[in-house]
């Protein structure tokens, strides 16, 4: 078990290294393919007032003339131990984990991400709770009443939920449910309030995004739960459970649902991991200052260091979620042995 975790952690680090290499390579190449030179890149750091000479010096100091490998090495070292940036006006210390400086704001990326993480986590966790409960419950009832009106109706809605993009459902919900609208369920103000500042306000501010995001996921989970339950309820051990004289409630929840939940757990872990990297559409639609919004802003302004930061943080959460899911698997299913 311990060796398993250690091995998985080592693999996780290797995975992150590969992701960082790939993204670095892409982001190193993209501007150059677009015609940028070391000088034009350095120009973004030194500001518009700098003359050509200063830019050249900055490019040299920032190492833009070095080979790709050397630049990546410096970038990776920055993440682990921090780095010093020296672009003309002065040396700036960028403490570990240093994901570089924004082209535009000239602020380090990492603290930026840190301030935005609570928003994304709040959004993801809250939505996750809603979609898990709603999706699994709908799926179970649909499976047990297969072919009924409820089954057909909920599966049609689920199909809609899977197919309709957030920027549609999000805007519809904003039009209908936000403050001042006919079916308002949110408080005035609307902007994000940290949980520790005011939990009620926190929930209020996030209710609409939660529901919108959860709708998308709940739909998928309902379908997944339904098919899982249909399969499990046909298992021999369900017949055994009934033959023992257990009540249908115990058969369904203790024996059936337990068997059907394992694949849901896997998907759940991965979905949650991905969402930690920002629910891009939801955050943009509801103007939430989370990581997704940060990424979109970075992409539109071509602020490469920010984009790379978001990619790496997302990769980190996905790798972590994978590990957690696999460990949980062994807890849920005693047949799984981690070796």
């Amino acid at each position, binding site marked *: 078990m311990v*060796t398993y975790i250690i*091995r998985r952690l080592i693999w996780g680090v290797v995975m992150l290294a590969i992701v960082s290499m790939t993204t670095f390579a892409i982001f190193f190449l993209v501007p150059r393919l677009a015609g940028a030179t070391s000088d034009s890149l350095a120009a973004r750091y030194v500001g518009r007032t700098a003359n050509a000479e200063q830019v050249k010096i900055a490019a040299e100091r920032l190492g833009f003339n070095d080979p790709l490998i050397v630049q990546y090495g410096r970038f990776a070292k920055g993440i682990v131990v921090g780095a010093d940036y020296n672009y003309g006006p002065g040396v700036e210390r960028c403490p570990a984990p240093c994901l570089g400086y924004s082209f535009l704001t000239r602020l380090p990326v990492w603290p930026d991400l840190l301030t935005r993480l609570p928003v994304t986590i709040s959004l993801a966790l809250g939505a996750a709770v809603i979609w898990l409960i709603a999706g699994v419950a709908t799926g179970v009832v649909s499976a047990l009443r297969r072919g009924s009106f409820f089954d057909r109706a909920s599966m049609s809605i689920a199909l809609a939920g899977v197919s309709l993009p957030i920027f549609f459902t999000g805007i519809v919900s904003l039009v209908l449910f936000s403050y001042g609208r006919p079916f308002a369920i949110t408080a005035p103000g609307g902007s994000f309030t940290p949980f520790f500042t005011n939990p009620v306000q926190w929930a209020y501010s996030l209710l609409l995004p939660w529901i919108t995001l959860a709708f998308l996921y709940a739909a998928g989970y309902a379908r997944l739960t339904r098919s899982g339950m249909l399969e499990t309820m046909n298992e021999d051990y369900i017949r055994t459970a009934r033959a023992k004289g257990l009540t249908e409630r115990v058969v369904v929840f203790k024996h059936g649902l337990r068997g059907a939940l394992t694949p849901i757990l896997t998907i759940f872990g991965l979905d949650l991991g991905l969402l930690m990297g920002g629910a891009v559409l939801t955050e943009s639609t509801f103007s939430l200052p989370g990581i997704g919004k940060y990424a979109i802003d970075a992409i539109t302004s071509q602020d490469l260091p920010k984009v790379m930061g978001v990619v790496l943080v997302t990769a980190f959460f996905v790798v972590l979620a994978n590990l957690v899911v696999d460990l949980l698997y062994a807890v849920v299913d005693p047949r799984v042995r981690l070796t």
Partner: protein
Amino acid sequence: MSESPEPLLSVQGLEKHFPITKGLIKRQVGAVKAVDGLSFDVVKGETLGLVGESGCGKTTTGRLITRLLEPTGGKVVFEGRDITHMSQGALRPLRRDMQMIFQDPYSSLNPRHTVGAIVGAPFRIQGVKTEHGTKKAVQDILELVGLNPEHYNRYPHEFSGGQRQRIGIARTLALKPKLIIADEPVSALDVSIQAQVVNLLEDLQNELDLTYVVIAHDLSVVRHISDRVAVMYLGKIVEIADRQALYEAPMHPYTTALLSAVPVPDVKRRTERERIRLQGDVPSPLNPPSACRFHTRCWKAQEICKTVEPPLAELATGHQVACHFPENAPKDAVPGDAGTAVPA
């Protein structure tokens, strides 16, 4: 059974050890000795039955002979050619001569292919041209195995279990193989259908001069179709003999116990039958008992069985057994000859 100087198939000291790994760097700490030193010959035209309980390695043996798995030791010689470590490419022409029938007629046929495509696949893969085209050849084979040739364009799900097993057999026959390895060919079928397939296998053997290695757990089916029978226990052959000798005068206690355990449809004798009941289950091949692997369940076991492994010795003509205290052995026979015994 004809004595030929060169057997069609010769297996010598065949081994398959699956590694067990542990720790951070997956260091090998042991091995599951699924097959641990098998030797036997199969001559042309005969049927060798391979029986044993789950975990005895009989299925692995079949896969080693057909080289679906690569042996970790020993030799497989087919028609005088050593195929033990032959590459898959070099094996391809040999696959025409050596075919396999599988247990499950449901999962071993591709549900999206027609019967014609399934049975005709070997022609395409091996690039064989036939006189009147592949379709005619396939229809001939379908007829041979007792299927309607007009069902050429149907899909596997349109057939019953027995018919599907016939399709599987037809596929193996397409290229007129010399050796067929049948792994539990009838155990998934209904009783009345089992008999049909057993008879079909026998008819085909006579008509096409086939050689069979039949792997099965059902001792009565094996007796019915085999000329010689090998009994396996935890990766080793414990007894190999002609059918009649093995079933009427088994020498190894395990064989005796197996035969005694088979329920017999004879109500008159059910109370008077003498039964030998083995205790417990087959031990795990992960950690098999020392020396004679059967000693933990054997009622004749003595100290020597735990320390000295009995070699497979020929105690009567064509009757080999690996036991220190064989039953039904001729008086002059020396079981487990001390000179050749392998200390554990």
